[in-house]
């Protein structure tokens, strides 16, 4: 399984705004927080801070100055007001499953956990909306709506643990986002507080807010603009039926052509996933999902909807796959078979974890038509860096997760893996893609941001941040690199992701 102790990056993210507070500062701050919060809602002892020193990107660890665990929005506001008055940074945190270090504390910051705001305030079945607090788990929304035949569509792989507040911060996707969209397409409104505690309400059940679309700005803003204490989400009718086609191809190129063929046929599959030969073999050895071991790539294409819609789409998907040279084809005939075919894909990360001491998970998005070229480039880079790489791919939306194999106990392996990862993200940008499709920037991809954006764009991001948070106290140093950092960076330097929660499905 994964080992984490081999890679320890102690380098703190650059943060221009606040120096570590003097002890004289700390006492009045903690006294004010203690006065505003119930006794069990403020953690200050070193042994209490341990669980909050990192999120899902465990290679970065830093205990915060204190942890606030409010029970209600008014307490969130109080924490923000007090921290603002004491010029103290605040790092918001959801369930801590993020993979890019977006919830990594700094030594001078109060970590603000929203985990205890977990009330589902309201479900309106007729209007198809749910109003929930940010600590509600993604999957819990769908569970609560199930009785009405409704569900919340975005399904990030960590959905049994990740919270809706974290989803808002990261603009999370999921296997079904090709058809049903990202968080930004499924959240109707948020309420919360600006960095100084000012209440703010953005969007709502009425479509297309008046004025600028600040709601779009909030989605994926990684806790830099506001702290959300209420989220209104759109619910969809749960599809009655779903089936999946597993098609094996001799080459990645054939599989890629089949993906283009399916889209060209006018079909938007509910899910469309690809794995290369190495990933397929690792998975099959692990979960025995029935994937052919001699395939160059396998494709999973799911259709959902009414019986009639699914029957029609599945027949067309099968025909396209055959036309593009599928060497074998299997279509689920029952819910058990469907889940078995998916089990392999969903176990891809742990399966890879069984055959390599460590791995780096990258997260680039490319135009689908460049897949073959980018995978060829990754194969070349694999030779060049002397490290193997398995590829899993959200084929429908172009989101590639190369998993670089390495052994942290081998001298030089970490650096080679990082260099390899850096080259992969550069290849994604060169192919017309982007440096992160769904994991976010956090602290992990600050350097890669320098590759994707030029100084004027980065300055604009900083200006937007300053418009919401003039004092620069909300999750400072995350998501957007300083111009100074980009200027100093000799070349792009990217740290790969390591998983803290190996028990959660990741795909």
């Amino acid at each position: 399984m994964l080992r984490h102790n081999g890679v320890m990056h102690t380098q703190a993210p650059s943060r221009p705004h606040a120096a570590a507070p003097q002890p004289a500062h700390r006492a009045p701050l903690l006294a004010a927080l203690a006065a505003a919060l119930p006794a069990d809602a403020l953690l200050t002892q070193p042994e209490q801070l341990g669980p909050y020193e990192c999120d899902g990107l465990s290679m970065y660890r830093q205990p915060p100055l204190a942890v606030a665990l409010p029970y209600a929005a008014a307490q969130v506001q109080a924490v923000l007001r007090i921290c603002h008055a004491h010029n103290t940074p605040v790092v918001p945190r959801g369930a801590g499953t993020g993979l890019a270090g977006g919830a990594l504390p700094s030594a001078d910051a109060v970590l603000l956990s929203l985990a205890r705001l977990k009330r589902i305030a309201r479900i309106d079945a007729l209007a198809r909306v749910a109003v929930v607090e940010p600590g509600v788990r993604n999957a819990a929304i769908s569970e609560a709506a199930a009785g009405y035949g409704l569900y919340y569509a975005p399904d990030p792989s960590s959905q049994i643990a990740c919270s809706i507040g974290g989803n808002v911060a990261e603009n999370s996707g999921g296997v079904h986002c090709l058809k049903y969209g990202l968080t930004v397409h499924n959240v109707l409104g948020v309420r919360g507080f600006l960095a100084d505690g000012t209440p703010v309400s953005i969007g709502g059940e009425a479509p297309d807010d008046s004025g600028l679309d600040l709601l779009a700005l909030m989605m994926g803003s990684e806790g830099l603009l506001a702290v959300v204490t209420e989220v209104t989400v759109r619910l969809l009718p749960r599809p009655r039926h779903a089936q999946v086609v597993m098609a094996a191809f001799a080459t990645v190129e054939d599989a890629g052509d089949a993906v283009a063929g399916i889209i060209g046929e006018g079909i938007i599959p509910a899910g469309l996933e690809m794995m290369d030969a190495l990933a397929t073999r690792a998975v099959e050895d692990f979960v025995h999902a029935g994937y052919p071991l001699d395939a160059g790539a396998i494709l999973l294409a799911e259709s959902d909807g009414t019986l009639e819609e699914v029957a029609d789409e599945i027949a067309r998907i099968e025909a396209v796959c055959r036309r593009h040279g599928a060497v074998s084809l299997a279509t689920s005939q029952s819910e058990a078979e469907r889940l078995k075919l998916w089990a392999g894909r969903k176990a891809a990360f742990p399966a890879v974890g069984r055959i390599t001491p460590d791995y780096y998970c990258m997260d680039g998005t490319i135009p689908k038509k460049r897949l073959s070229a980018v995978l060829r480039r990754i194969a070349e880079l694999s030779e060049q860096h002397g490290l193997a790489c398995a590829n899993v791919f959200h084929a429908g939306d172009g989101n590639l997760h190369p998993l670089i194999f390495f052994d942290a106990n081998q001298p030089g392996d970490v650096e080679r893996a990082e260099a390899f990862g850096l080259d992969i993200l550069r290849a994604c940008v060169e192919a017309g893609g982007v440096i992160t499709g769904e994991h976010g920037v956090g602290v992990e991809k600050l350097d890669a941001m320098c590759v994707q954006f030029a100084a004027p764009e980065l300055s604009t991001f900083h200006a937007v941040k300053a418009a919401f948070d003039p004092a620069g106290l909300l999750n400072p140093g995350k998501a957007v690199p300083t111009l100074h950092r980009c200027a100093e960076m000799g070349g792009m330097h990217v740290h790969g992701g390591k998983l803290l929660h190996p028990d959660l499905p990741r795909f």
Partner: protein
Amino acid sequence: MTHYEPEGRTPDPEEARLVDEVRAAGTEGRVLHIRGGSSKDGLGGTPRGSGLSTLGLKGIVDYDPAELVVTVRAGTPLADLQAELAAHGQMLPFEPPAWPDATVGGTVASGLSGPRRAFSGSVRDALLGVRLIDGRGQLLQFGGQVMKNVAGFDLFRLQAGAWGRLGVLLEVSFRVLPRPQSELTRVLQMDADQAIAHMNQLAGTPVPLSAAAWFGGLLHLRLSGSAAGVQAALSGVGGEPLDPLSAERLWADCAAQPPGFAETAAAAESVPLWRLAVPAATRSLAAEGEEAIDWCGGLRWLRTHAPAEAVRALATSLGGHATAWQNNLARPAMHPLDPVRQALHRRLFDTLDPDGVFDSGRFDADAAAVVAPAGA
């Protein structure tokens, strides 16, 4: 399969000209109002400042149907883009109003979506990236040509409905969708409150609804999808079929303004028209004026002599907002913002457009400073 190679990033002379114009206006303290095909001149306040035309920016830059992405220059006629997409069996998901001379840039800047909006998303939902000139005359690029992209703030989506207040759009990328294999429209006779309940109940079941609108005592429902799926869903929907040609015209008209609604208004020319966005299941507003409903209940057209303050108060009380539309001189045309969001707007404008180059007054939801124009 058509494929347009992206143009090289050598400086484009037309873009260079626009950059020069914006910089000069900033230096000289002049205001510019950005114009495409001028098809939406009647909406919102009359802009001040001199016009800056985007009509020199024409053409599809990149379109590969298998990517479900199209990149197009801002001055391109919307009709040209839609024709090209249709030729490849695809469409814009948000069914924008297709006024003659409408451009792609104006379509994004106005943020106006049609009947499909309630089911396949709005303009901003389909937007993947933009290139623009900001108030400092900088060429900026946000987003990209891929659907999944979480690098940086979504400043590209912020352009939808910004009415050019943040910059001159040069090029935009949309996610597109396949045109449905089959579309059928059914018409049911019922009153507004029955229609609101019926359309919302139906939308909570797995029926392939793609539009639900009520006006003139009739509920119009459109089903889109595979032929088999649409046929199978018909029995649960009921109503009388509308022939395909009439249906196509009806939904195209709805994207701008419900057609039957305009005709039945005896005093259409003199009664102010409002466009209200409200929670979908909100009761009928028939008591407050003549009402038409779209977006599965989320959009209400209201023709009423009620004072502007009363209409605004009604919209606010319902958790929504009201925009002054036809024959309606209420200013600002857009629903005023609460003080917190107003302050955020002000700070965003000050930082992204410090000289107020794009402060033409067209985008007026933020400002008390806007002078009520003589007419719209």
